[in-house]
């Protein structure tokens, strides 16, 4: 019962209440921090490009500044877009991704400039080759990222399309499996849709769509998954019927392994689901069940590959290479052996930008880019790149901690984990820690699908971190202005009908 003395709707004019505490007061606008860090990142990419050209072609060509300047324009565009669309977002994401993406573009140009007769060449144009393609894809990805930022104004709105996106994700995963090999097979993995002049990897986009569904589903089911359990060996194990969805995703990822012949993608989907499940329920038993199921499935595939061959043979070969690459160093193990030799040649400080032999490793522009880069920038350089990945993942998890709704927490946690898992799977494969799987290195490898999908992933993290860091009275950019959709304004009207 409200009395006359009760506070009515709160004052809307600023200055009437306590001073709004800017949550990050004293640190200035996060967008300016972001801009400064992007400038530093581009400076590093520029230095690398110049040093690389000096090393590779003994001169700094007149074209050396073009990729860096183009990148600068687009990253600046995203920074400006952030000022309007996500003013409170974490300032770390954009510069960290900018550094890795810029290094990717620069290193692909380095591969273009690797040639036995390079010194006879007179044209060092930046408008051709892998580097230029990657530059175009980066531009397209950033344009798309801005569209995503503009369309998805509130990450919670994604949960409304959870079932649609989940279905779309499954369809995207299945398309390459049912297409004839002519249209979907590249280097032994059936992961592609080939349109003739270019091909896309639908699984990269399916990742994000499936994560939306996982997060939505687990928010609904977290109580029953975390509360109903049997205690066994000091761990809480779920009831048999609650295992259903886990088994379903496990079966799906094994089917990816068998029909698309790709362990990496299969590991990504399953790892993503188990991690989201663990974040939702805080039950370590899910991690153990997940690892057990995946390990068992992979071991079974290995045994079957030896016995019956067929769809399992590809995986068997990869596992054998992993166990002893030097036993067949000239044929099957050639790629991994060259990668290990390259990393070894680089040593601690690398051979120097532009002074390695990246083309010795087959597919250096895709899966093995971290080995090619590692040869030239050494352990110190490669570690720095990996630390930057770690920082992106860490800030993603930080956004998950900060955001106020369960869906956002699960979604951001899942996105951050997915990125980290992908880096682990491919860098682990290249350095012979785990069996090699055909994953791209996020933001570094040549390839449009992967670049674009990972930019969307980071854009969604930017969107969620904006929600997590926004003070409760709406965007700081427009104090007193109309609050964003779903914000407090709507609720003032609502309160009147509740008061009796």
């Amino acid at each position, binding site marked *: *019962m*409200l*009395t006359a*003395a*009760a*506070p009515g709707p*709160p*004052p809307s004019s600023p200055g*009437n*209440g*306590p001073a*709004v*505490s800017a*949550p990050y007061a004293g*640190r200035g606008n996060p967008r300016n921090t972001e801009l400064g*860090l992007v400038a*530093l*990142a581009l*400076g*590093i990419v520029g*230095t*690398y490009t110049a*040093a690389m050209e*000096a*090393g590779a072609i003994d001169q700094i060509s007149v074209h050396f500044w073009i990729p860096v300047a183009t990148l600068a324009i687009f990253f600046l565009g995203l920074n400006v877009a952030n000022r309007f669309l996500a003013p409170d977002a974490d*300032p770390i994401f954009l*510069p960290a991704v900018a*550094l890795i993406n810029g290094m990717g573009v620069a290193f692909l140009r380095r591969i273009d400039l690797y040639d036995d007769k390079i010194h006879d060449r007179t044209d060092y144009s930046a408008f051709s080759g892998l580097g230029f393609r990657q530059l175009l894809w980066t531009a397209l990805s950033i344009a798309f990222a801005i569209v995503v930022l503009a369309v998805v104004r509130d990450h919670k709105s994604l*949960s409304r399309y959870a079932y649609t996106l989940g279905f779309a994700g499954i369809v995207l995963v299945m398309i390459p499996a049912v297409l004839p090999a002519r249209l979907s097979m590249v280097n032994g993995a059936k992961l592609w849709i080939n349109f003739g002049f270019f091909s896309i990897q639908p699984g990269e986009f399916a990742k994000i769509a499936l994560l939306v569904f996982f997060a939505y589903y687990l*928010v609904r089911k977290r*109580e029953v998954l975390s509360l109903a359990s049997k205690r066994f060996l000091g761990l809480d194990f779920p009831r048999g019927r609650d295992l259903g969805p886990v088994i379903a995703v496990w079966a799906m990822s094994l089917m990816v392994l068998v029909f698309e012949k790709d362990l990496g993608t299969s590991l990504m989907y399953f790892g993503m689901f188990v991690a989201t499940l663990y974040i939702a329920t805080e039950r370590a038993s899910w991690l153990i069940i997940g690892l057990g199921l995946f390990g068992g499935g992979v071991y079974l595939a290995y045994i079957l590959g030896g016995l019956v061959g067929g769809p399992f043979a590809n995986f068997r070969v990869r596992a054998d290479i992993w166990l002893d690459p030097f036993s067949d160093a000239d044929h099957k193990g050639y790629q991994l052996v060259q990668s290990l030799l390259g990393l070894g040649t680089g040593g601690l*400080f690398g051979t*120097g*930008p532009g002074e390695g032999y990246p083309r010795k490793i087959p597919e250096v522009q895709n899966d093995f880019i971290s080995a090619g880069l590692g040869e030239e*920038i*050494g352990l*110190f350089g490669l570690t*720095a*790149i990996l*630390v930057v990945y770690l*920082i992106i993942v*860490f*800030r993603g998890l930080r956004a998950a*901690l*900060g955001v*106020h*709704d*369960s869906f956002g927490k699960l979604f951001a946690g899942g996105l951050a984990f997915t990125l980290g898992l992908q880096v682990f799977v491919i860098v682990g494969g290249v350095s012979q820690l785990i069996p090699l799987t055909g994953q791209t290195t996020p933001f570094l490898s040549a390839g449009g699908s992967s670049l674009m999908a990972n930019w969307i992933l980071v854009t969604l993290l930017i969107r969620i971190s904006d929600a997590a860091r926004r*003070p*409760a*009275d*709406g965007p700081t950019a427009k104090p007193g202005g109309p609050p964003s959709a*779903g*914000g*407090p304004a709507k*609720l*003032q009207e609502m*309160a009147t009908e*509740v008061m*009796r």
Partner: protein
Amino acid sequence: MPAIVLTVARFGFLVLLWIFVFTVVGVIRRDMFAGARSGRLVAAPRGIMPSMGQGRPAKVKRGRVAHQLIVTGGALAGTRITLGEAPITIGRAEDSTLVITDDYASARHARLVSRAGQWYLEDLGSTNGTYLDRAKVTAPTSVPLGVPIRIGRTSLELRP
């Protein structure tokens, strides 16, 4: 290119790369430090103020104003919301400021409104009620710093 230039470029690049990493870590450190500083000032519960005439601007001293709403118990424990002037709505509805997935919470459970520096807690006709410390909230009640607000299994506190 002279060899010395190449050597300088090679090591200079690595140094720059690590300068970037440490600059980013520095930004993160400042970010966390700012969060931790306000977290350390935990006000002790002061009991519930009797009437609503309190909390005029003159009485609100610096440092006593609530700047954060912290979830201290329940599924969202550890979440903090920085308070502005706009009301904070709490409930299971997706458009609430604080969305809680708690079986004992209603879709639109309660809200916190600010007036002249004092925050008032108001129950929005919830099924299971809103409690300020031990007392059930029936009319808008002023919320002192550090006193737990209980909604279902979730508890919240205002912090400076």
